[in-house]
């Protein structure tokens, strides 16, 4: 459970993500999806108050962000940080320090996988003169170089044009093929459809988990017209 200003934000989250599993979290705006992502990463102000957080059999609920990252957990923000003055090559190399570093070719390959030309982007600054979509792709490239055990992706498609949605889906599959589990927060049924499993979240509660297409349909047909914010649901 996590509460802020006396209001319960997460109050019924029972979630399990398997090894090399792509697991989508679906839900309306304000359902608590991003809060869940921040809580899993251990961000300041998102420390959960009750319950347990187990990663590879170890309780990580008291660990700092850095300690969780060193265990192999990382997060890609919905709106990436700007990082004035930090070059793309230096940013991509940071995450790779924990797994033996990267070669020049690794950096280039990471950019190619997010459809950015290495010769154009590698020596540019992350912050200045890059669009939101470009920064988003660079954020995802930094996850590629880090090779995490669990990648938490908060709306990886936001700010990226619809044409590129297929590339995002392919990228998520690549994370899986490279040995990562992926927890992906999304509104897109295309991304949910590429998942192994999906969970539906509403008002801080995981309502149900299961087949991604069924969960997507349920969300589309039952949740969108629902007045759950007036009568919050109970945990499943």
């Amino acid at each position, binding site marked *: 459970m996590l509460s802020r200003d006396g209001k319960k934000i997460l109050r019924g989250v029972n979630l399990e993500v398997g090894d090399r599993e792509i697991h989508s979290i679906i839900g309306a705006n304000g359902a608590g999806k991003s809060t869940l992502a921040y809580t899993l*990463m251990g*961000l*300041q102000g998102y420390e959960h108050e009750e319950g347990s957080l187990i990663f590879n059999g170890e309780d990580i609920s008291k660990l*700092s*962000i*850095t300690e*969780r*990252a*060193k265990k192999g*957990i*990382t*997060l890609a*923000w919905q709106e*990436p*940080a*700007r*990082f*004035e*003055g*930090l*070059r793309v090559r*230096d940013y991509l190399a*940071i*995450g790779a*320090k*924990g797994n033996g570093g990267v070669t020049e070719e690794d950096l280039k390959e990471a950019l190619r996988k997010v459809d950015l030309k290495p010769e154009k982007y590698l020596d540019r*600054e992350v912050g200045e003169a890059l669009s939101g979509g470009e920064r988003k792709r660079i*954020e995802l490239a*930094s996850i590629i170089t*880090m090779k995490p055990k669990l990648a938490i992706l908060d709306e990886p498609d936001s700010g990226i044009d619809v044409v590129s949605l297929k590339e995002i889906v392919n990228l998520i599959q690549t994370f899986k093929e490279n040995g990562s589990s992926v927890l992906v927060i999304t509104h897109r049924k295309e991304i949910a459809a590429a998942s192994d499993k999906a969970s539906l979240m509403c008002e801080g509660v995981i309502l149900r988990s299961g087949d991604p297409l069924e969960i997507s349909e349920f969300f589309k047909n039952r949740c969108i017209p629902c007045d759950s914010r007036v009568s919050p649901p109970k945990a499943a």
Partner: protein
Amino acid sequence: MTQITLNTLSSEIKDMDAAYSASGGDAAVLHNHELASLVISGNKVLNANGIEGIVLEPQETEHGVDVKLTIKKGYKISLPVHLCFGLIPEDGLQEINMNFVAEEDSAVELVAHCTFPNAVKIIHRMEAQMHVGKNASLKYTETHFHGPHGGAQVIPKAHVKIEEGGSYFNNFSLISGRVGALEFDYDVDAEKDSVCEMITKVYGKKDDKIKIMEKVSLNGENARSVIKSRLAITEDAESEFKGITEGHAPRSRGHVDCLEVLQGNAKAEAIPIIRVDNPLAKVTHEAAIGCVDKKEVETLMARGLEEDDAIDTIVKGMLA
């Protein structure tokens, strides 16, 4: 035309070479006679080398050196001119009076390194007059290297005049070691169709006192300018930034941009001042003082960096 003045003060040359290298310069360029260069230690000219298109006239004075550097009309100097100013001893006074002239249609890049590796009680005063001729381009980069004691008083003061169609780029950086006290004061007059860009990057530590004063007067039609300041102030250091841009002419455009990152007990003040007395001119400003951005810190921590390393990476990036 090549002018060479060489004093054979070998140990001092060696010390300056070492200090120049420590400040990020390549000491070999100071001894390459195909490149223009000037090396001053205290009030001694250790090396002065002009090349075709450049007239270099240094004159030793009681406490420093008067330097006149002229880029002749129409000469585009393809490789940077390297300047090195410094004091090796722990105490002393160095006064540099500079007169830079980029004549009409000329272009040059001046790369200056100022190095005070052992400073305990040093005053480094620089008074400069820079004249950028019609359609000329002058780029001046000044990088400071200081030791750990913070015993220097650095007082660079300049007046820059940019004639029609000229461009002036200034990049001042003091991020290595501790300065002590910095009083930076640059004043620019920009005439018709000219361009001015001034960037200052300073890292204040312990009880450093940092004062930055930059002023651009956009006097001519279509004159454009940017004042950009990036300061990281930590521990008990204090900073004061004042960036002034005045739009006096039609279609002149100016912008003042100050970002200060604060840590520990540091104190910072930023005062952007914009004045316009022509209805067709436009001048804007932005200033922000605060701690290091939380999301940036947490993003780097989520990639495995410790918090202090994440903050250090962000601050170094901002000052890079």
